[in-house]
């Protein structure tokens, strides 16, 4: 068995995990009519914001109205965004543990560079010895997640649109802090 085989298995686990996360998110969140309506609202709001920004005119009334509508949308989206975050976190932890259990404690590749200190915590995780160019399975898993998760999300296009992803929860959290 070669490194490519082991890495291929880890990439496969990562891919399956990403697909499962998308499926569960679609099953419980994305396909709900309420979420779809909010998604459309976020798209419309994003277009209005872009139009207001590019027009150059300082229309305070329109900007305030848009901000209030954006805050209301953030409050409605909050639980759906939390839901997708929880699903992501659960599967990330589960597959991390699986990869560690099946492939941990043994190097699976050699790095073509000397990793800096902060990177060795991931790249040399659980490996014996001082050869920092030895690469652990966890690092291959991290790289797979970086490469695959976003790609699966984008190409499946199950429901997490760009407008939704860009719709910030920050104004809502700041307003809640002021209330406290």
């Amino acid at each position: 068995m070669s490194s490519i085989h082991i890495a291929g298995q880890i990439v496969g686990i990562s891919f399956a995990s990403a697909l499962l996360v998308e499926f569960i998110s679609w099953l419980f969140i994305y396909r709900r009519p309420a979420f779809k309506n909010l998604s459309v609202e976020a798209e419309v709001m994003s277009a209005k914001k872009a139009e207001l920004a590019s027009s150059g005119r300082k229309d305070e009334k329109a900007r305030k109205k848009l901000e209030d509508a954006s805050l209301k949308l953030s409050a409605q989206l909050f639980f759906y965004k939390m839901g997708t975050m929880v699903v992501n976190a659960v599967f990330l932890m589960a597959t991390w543990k699986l990869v560690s259990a099946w492939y941990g404690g043994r190097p699976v590749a050699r790095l073509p560079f000397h990793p800096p200190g902060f990177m060795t915590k991931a790249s040399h995780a659980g490996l014996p010895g001082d050869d920092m160019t030895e690469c652990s399975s966890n690092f291959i898993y991290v790289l797979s997640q970086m490469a695959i998760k976003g790609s699966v999300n984008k190409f499946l296009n199950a429901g997490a649109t760009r407008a939704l992803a860009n719709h910030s929860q920050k104004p809502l959290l700041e307003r809640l802090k002021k209330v406290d």
Partner: protein
Amino acid sequence: MSSKTQSKAGANASVISKLLSPADATWKKDELMNVLFTLKIVVAIGFGCMCGLLPITGWPAFVGYIVTSMVFTLGFYQSYLQIDEEEFGGHGELLNEGQAMGLGAFALCWILLYTEVHSGFELKGF
């Protein structure tokens, strides 16, 4: 074929026809970002395979990847598509689209090909 599959197929055909005739095309932001994202992933896999096979080792490979990725992306949307970047969020947003995913794909291809072809690494315990 369901209506959703048909509309997706239609949208893909529309993007391909826009890529083949860029002078006549008007782009939606989502379409353009998806195209740039795909370009970044392709460049990342190609550059990672090249670095792994040659081999190129050390930090110059990372720097080379970032520069190559940015030059390809900039050249693609400025020279080939000839779009006005201000309409789509500026250079920052266009160049950053898919950067993290591209970096992951580049590193993965580079590390695995280097390990397989040049490093003399032997798996133990599997």
